[in-house]
């Protein structure tokens, strides 16, 4: 599974994307974030407040309780500020 990070989330984690293989107990986006938090302090810091984050699954906006089954690309980012 590929994870993409954008804007200040990318800067805090230090990479724009990475390949991860979460354990089978990770079934939704919230679970994925919880698992990422356990990896290193920079993840714990970056994901301190997930209410400040948004998620897209295979390039479509989704919620944090959306299932990950079959998903190839997860993107995590702050609220968008284009225009």
């Amino acid at each position, binding site marked *: 599974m590929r994870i993409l990070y*954008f804007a*200040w989330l990318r800067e805090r984690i230090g990479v724009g994307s990475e390949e991860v293989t979460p354990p089978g107990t990770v079934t939704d986006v919230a679970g994925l974030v919880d698992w990422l938090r356990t990896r290193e302090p920079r993840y714990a810091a970056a994901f301190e407040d997930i209410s400040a984050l948004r998620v897209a699954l295979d390039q*479509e906006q989704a919620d944090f309780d959306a299932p990950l089954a079959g998903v190839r690309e997860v993107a995590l980012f702050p609220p968008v500020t284009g225009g």
Partner: protein
Amino acid sequence: MPVRVQEADFDPGAELEALARGDTEIGAVVSFTGLVRGSGGVAEMTLEHYPGMTEAALKEIEAAAHRRWPLQATTIIHRVGPLAPGARIVFVATASRHRGAAFEAAEYIMDYLKTRAPFWKKEAAEDGSATWVDARESDEAAAARWEG
């Protein structure tokens, strides 16, 4: 009905000309151009985006506008990368028989572009510090008025 995401600048006059060319059913053309404001000591703005999803999101916003209003044509252009104060960031244009549809559709596209398309702005100040721009609640409220 082009949707473009690009680093290069664009020419609003040429875009308006191309939008309405040859279709004499068009009576009304509305355009919105967003510019980088230099207020508060902003020296440079950098636009980050999510390649692939950006284009899909803009196309979906455009398609939703066409479902909602009788539009002859639309154009959406959004720049990415570093931009100086005064530079164009975004261009939306809509063409319809009557002005009501053209105005509403242009506002609708901008409201959803601001809240649904994956762009992020980072401002660099003259003193070298840089800040990610926070999302504005007023933009969410503007998009919400089209729901339901």
